[in-house]
């Protein structure tokens, strides 16, 4: 099972999702992330989806759920690196991931979390 590695750097849990996810590995990843956030008392979670070519409604919902769970543990979740094609598909599907913060790349997300600034793209 090619689970994506989850690492924590200066209070940020970072995961780069490698290949297109099936439903089982999505659930596994969710477990893993929440565990890690609780264990490290992280301030933020960065999910890099730049290698995902397809994001379906299930993954979309999972991202929303992740943000909510991490929020309960007092951590911000920022989704980074979404491809244009993926963004267009999600919008067509009517999924705007309203509760999730987004940033262009992991570097910018890291900056946001460390500085405690709000993402420019947070839904108001």
């Amino acid at each position: 099972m090619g689970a994506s590695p989850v690492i924590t750097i200066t209070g940020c849990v970072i995961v780069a999702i490698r290949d297109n996810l099936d439903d089982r590995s999505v659930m596994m990843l969710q477990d893993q992330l929440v565990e890690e956030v609780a264990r490290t008392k992280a301030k933020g979670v960065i999910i890099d989806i730049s290698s995902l070519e397809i994001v379906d409604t299930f993954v979309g919902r999972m991202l929303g759920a992740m943000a909510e769970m991490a929020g309960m543990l007092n951590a911000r979740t920022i989704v980074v690196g979404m491809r244009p094609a993926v963004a267009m598909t999600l919008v067509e599907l009517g999924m705007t991931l309203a509760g999730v913060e987004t940033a262009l790349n992991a570097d910018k997300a890291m900056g946001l979390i460390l500085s405690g600034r709000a993402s420019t793209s947070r839904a108001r």
Partner: protein
Amino acid sequence: MALATIIQNEFDQILANWMRDQGREGVRRTDVVSARESEAQSRELLQALARALRDTRSDDTFDFSNPGWDPVREALEHISQTRTESGVSPTEMAWFIASIKQSIFTILSQRNADDPKLLIDQVWMVTKIVDQMALHAISAYVDQREAIIERQQSEMTEVSAPVVKIWDRIVTVPLLGTVDSFRAQTVMENLLQAIVEREAEVAIIDITGVSTVDTMVAQHLLKTAAAVRLMGAECVISGISPKIAQTIVHLGVDLPNVVTRGDLQSGLSYAFERLGVKIGG
């Protein structure tokens, strides 16, 4: 006497009569097609017709899709193309072809005057063939027009949505004219691509030049804004004129989570504020 043979033997006579008829019917258009060119085209078409008639023995059956008629179709396409380029209307094009009938009928009635039944059959056959030829010329004309429209459309798409980086981390796309689904899609694609390439954090869509905003356009703007947000940037819609503001409210369109500003300047200063850019003075 058979149709193919008559046209073969009386070729010059028919061509001469046809040229005369063209002049009389007023389909010659000497202003755009020279007399010499007109004759060359007529000759080309009549020759192709004579050849096709000889090769397909169409005295009994006639099928325009038969490969034997390829030269006629090619000749028609060629003529249609040259005439379209010089500005001849499709009506004149069809008339030009239909005007061949009289010259052929005259010859036929002279040669087969003693056999009315054969004569009627041949007249019927020629009518069918010439009608098909005219139809084919029209469809060739339409195809050529379609090709021109397609080319222009793709040229327009290229220039219609230029995404410009106006400041560090800020891109803008000015929209002009009418926004249809196709263009809205192109704008969205270009904008999202530019956000990735330029690492932009704020994208400004300027709609100063958009003539009308209806529910569909508003819908497209909302979608684009949502997609921009998903990419990790913020979307600002600027250039909302008082009239457009009224329209949007009257249409009952809600623009939640989208920053709107009256002009590009305000949009830009909002972006500066978000990014913490300080401008001297």
